[in-house]
């Protein structure tokens, strides 16, 4: 990097502009600025370009997207908990209804079959779907992929 006649490296102008020089270096740059028109011209150009850059590019971004990213895990947890509560409630309701009908001696065998067979079918389908889902999640190679 070139030096001026005042033994000040050119890049020290940028350091001076940014307030990053030691007191001694700052004084050397200030001396050079007082003495040299060319040095002052370069300094003014650097100052202008820095101001232009800082003013033109105003950092802006949609922070809501970030906030949504933060809320996403909470939303997912709420959805899972709600779904589980509904599923368990429905299962309990079904078990209670079926056991009441099965234990009721006043209901005929045909009527019991009409209620118990569909209930058994729904249970079998539920178990089949659950097994398939569990098998898929255990063998899914994209499970650990970070999105």
């Amino acid at each position: 990097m070139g030096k001026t006649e005042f033994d000040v490296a050119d890049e020290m102008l940028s350091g001076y502009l940014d307030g990053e020089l030691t007191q001694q270096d700052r004084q050397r740059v200030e001396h050079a600025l007082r003495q040299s028109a060319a040095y002052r011209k370069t300094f003014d150009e650097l100052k202008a370009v820095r101001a232009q850059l800082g003013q033109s590019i105003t950092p802006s971004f949609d922070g809501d997207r970030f906030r949504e990213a933060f809320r996403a895990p909470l939303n997912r947890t709420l959805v899972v908990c709600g779904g589980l509560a509904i599923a368990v409630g429905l299962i309990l309701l079904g078990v209670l209804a079926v056991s009441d009908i099965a234990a009721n001696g006043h209901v005929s065998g045909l009527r019991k079959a009409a209620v118990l067979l569909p209930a058994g079918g729904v249970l079998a389908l539920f178990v089949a779907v659950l097994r398939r889902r569990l098998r898929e999640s255990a063998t899914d190679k994209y499970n650990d992929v970070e999105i």
Partner: protein
Amino acid sequence: MQRSKAFAEQLAQLGGGAHALATYLLGNRDDAADAVHDAIVNALRRPHAYNPEQGALKPWFLSVVRHRCIDLLRRRRPADHQVEVLPDPRPTPDRAAQTDQSLALIDAALNRLPDAQREILVLRDVNDLNYAEIADMLTIPKGTVMSRLHRARLALRRALDDMEEASYGQD
């Protein structure tokens, strides 16, 4: 929960500067938005990766964003072909639509600079990091920060002059 909410809010506030950095590293606003989003999600997953005793949050987060951008660039550019992809000096269509002529001019001038110069300008003059923070982030000596920044500002000045001359020539 309150702590992580506050952490998320701090990161969201740094999103603008991080997006500017990612835009000038990746050359595309949408990719930059994705990179910053990924960096935020990763930071939220591992909030203890940030140690306040080792420095301010801003340089740390900008480092995370920078690493994410480098990952994306590596995927984009095959490692066995170290060809420097020169960005298109013309403003991108979404930028050109902006009425701010000064922004379009700076944008195009920045895109003419080498990646390293563009990056250091955005870190210093847009994100307002000091030399020590930049040196730490780029793992270069403080003196190199000063000289690289100086060359980058001079190069930007020249690019702006060239473009202004070219636009006068067209008129």
